[in-house]
């Protein structure tokens, strides 16, 4: 009994936090500041507790399974959620529905945990739904803005469509194999045409969620309309969770179809990198810019996955960790600036260094890491991804990816130039940093530098991943 509870410790912890929030909401009125302090403390406890009492096992007819790698992935997501929660302090301080915001956000986190741990396509599907439907409600949390409602509408329609594709694929897969259980599926896959077709549909469902290029059309609009905190959650946490599952499903369940998915990944990653980069070149809204940059980053991740080796899965998890730190550092600055001044376009950031030197440096380091400039972790992450992809000796793919890194340098450094060199008559005024956002930003910066330089992180992930 105790063992079973320990296996589900992270899920139980999140549920417990949701319950505590519910009781706090029902109790006497508290100011937002006390409430936010309580929530952030609870989330911090959640992250810390995630590192203890690790165990491995299977529960409920293989509906739920866990191992140290999954625990690590969940810890990464919990950490990201804590950072976002701390960064959105200034925005939430004046918001009317803070408890609901956290209840919805944490139920999506719960969904992601179940999705990562699911050992059955049904569990995976439910986890995925639980991690997207409440997010659409959260995307509407700028209740007075029309754009925010538009974002929520687009998110829910596109996610419903992708769920439809996913379910169609799953039902065909069930029709041809007679099982939904991950551990039994590989033996039942024989590569018949119907199975390949089902797999294509599943792949399309995944591609929607991580916004790979032919399926990316919702991304920029949703990112632009949603509140910045929600945008950062969407682009980092929910994408990261789906990527974790994507790698493990491709590498274990669909291993018999490896020949088929290599070709798909090859095509998708080329399209994603090129189109993501070219569209990022001409964006002026910071959120749209980061949306297209995140599409391009996913393209690089797909190259890593296509390597189909242990190095592939290690480098993907490593890169997602780095991506969380660097993207959250960038978003953290945007959240602060947007909450206080309401300015969200890149041209507003001209002369930002003159008024906010600390924030300017944090944003610069984050952008360097996203671009992959050597001392930051982003360089190591992309390097390992391309290394993993190069194992297939498909030099055309690697060359095009490397050329695209040069393009990406141009648009990331364009922002840096605007911050440091461009003159502006009315620069953004000095933005005050409350304690919590400041701490969160410092954690991100330490993460950006340390994850790349401390080789223990990479070695630890590598020791947990399974050989292909």
């Amino acid at each position: 009994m105790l063992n079973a509870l320990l296996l589900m410790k992270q899920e139980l912890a999140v549920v417990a936090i949701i319950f505590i929030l519910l009781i706090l909401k029902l109790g006497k009125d508290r100011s937002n500041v006390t409430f936010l302090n309580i929530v952030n403390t609870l989330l911090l406890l959640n992250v810390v507790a995630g590192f203890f009492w690790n165990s491995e096992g299977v529960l409920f007819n293989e509906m739920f399974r866990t191992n140290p790698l999954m625990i690590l992935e969940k810890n990464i997501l919990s950490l990201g959620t804590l950072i976002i929660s701390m960064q959105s302090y200034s925005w939430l301080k004046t918001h009317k529905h803070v408890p609901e915001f956290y209840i919805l956000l944490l139920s999506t986190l719960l969904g992601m945990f179940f999705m990562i741990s699911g050992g059955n396509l049904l569990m995976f599907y439910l986890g995925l739904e639980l991690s997207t439907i409440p997010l659409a409600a959260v995307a509407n949390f700028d209740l007075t803005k029309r754009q925010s409602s538009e974002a929520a509408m687009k998110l829910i329609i596109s996610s419903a469509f992708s769920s439809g594709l996913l379910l169609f694929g799953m039902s065909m897969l069930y029709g041809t194999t007679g099982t939904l259980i991950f551990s039994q599926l590989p033996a039942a896959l024989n590569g018949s045409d119907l199975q390949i077709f089902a797999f294509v549909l599943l792949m399309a469902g995944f591609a929607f969620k991580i916004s790979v290029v032919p399926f990316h059309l919702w991304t920029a609009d949703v990112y632009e309309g949603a509140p910045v905190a929600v945008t950062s959650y969407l682009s980092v946490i929910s994408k990261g969770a789906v990527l974790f599952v994507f790698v493990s499903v491709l590498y274990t369940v669909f291993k018999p179809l490896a020949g088929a998915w290599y070709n798909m990944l090859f095509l998708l990653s080329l399209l994603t990198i090129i189109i993501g980069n070219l569209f990022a070149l001409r964006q002026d809204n910071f959120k749209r810019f980061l949306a297209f940059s995140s599409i391009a980053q996913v393209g690089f991740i797909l190259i890593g996955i296509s390597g189909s080796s242990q190095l592939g899965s290690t480098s993907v998890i490593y890169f997602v960790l780095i991506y969380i730190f660097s993207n959250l550092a960038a978003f953290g600055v945007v959240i602060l600036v947007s909450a206080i001044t309401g300015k969200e376009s890149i041209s507003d950031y001209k002369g930002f260094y003159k008024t906010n030197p600390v924030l300017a440096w944090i944003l610069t380091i984050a952008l360097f890491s996203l671009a992959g400039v050597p001392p930051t972790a982003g360089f190591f992450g992309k390097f390992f991804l391309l290394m993993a992809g190069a194992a297939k000796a498909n030099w055309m793919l690697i060359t095009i990816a490397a050329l695209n890194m040069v393009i990406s340098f141009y648009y990331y450094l364009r922002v840096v130039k605007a911050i440091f060199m461009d003159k502006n008559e009315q620069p953004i005024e000095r933005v005050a940093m409350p304690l919590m956002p400041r701490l969160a930003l410092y954690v991100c910066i330490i993460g950006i530098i340390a994850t790349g330089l401390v080789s223990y992180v990479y070695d630890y992930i590598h020791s947990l991943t399974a050989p292909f």
Partner: protein
Amino acid sequence: MSLVEIIFWFLSGLALISAIMVLLSKNPVHSVLWLIAVFFAISGHYILLNAQFLAIVNLIVYAGAIMVLFLFVIMLMNQNAETEPRSKSTWIKLAGAIAGGCLLIVVVAAVRDSENLIQNIGGKAYAKTAVTTHGEIGLIENLGRVLFTQYVVPFEISSVLFLSAMVGAVVIGKKD
């Protein structure tokens, strides 16, 4: 031709004709009514498969609740021929038809292919598609038992999903 086969063909024909009429009707309210006919035909199929629970739920939820919602929305939005967007060019229609047709060919070919893959191993025929071993899984009693034993975790998680969806809807819908 047995009675079951006759009913099967009748229901299939009804479902297809109604589905085509959903698309062809100019009046959206007529489309919705035809859609209800589709759901009735599909519920008939479920009963043929001995899935009584699914048949009833399909009627109550889809033909009942969801269709009423559809009708409400259509009436509130006051859709008619004048408000329809007229921007669809012939090329887009052609491209859509070709893409849809290709998808249909691929699906049909894939299904046909797996039908031909019945293997003969040791004197027994093994299908490449899964075969249901017994026809009583769709009865309410059996479904309930499976739902609360084997599939209890997904069942409970779906309740969390509904709860969070409700919280979201209330927050968005609140006036103040």
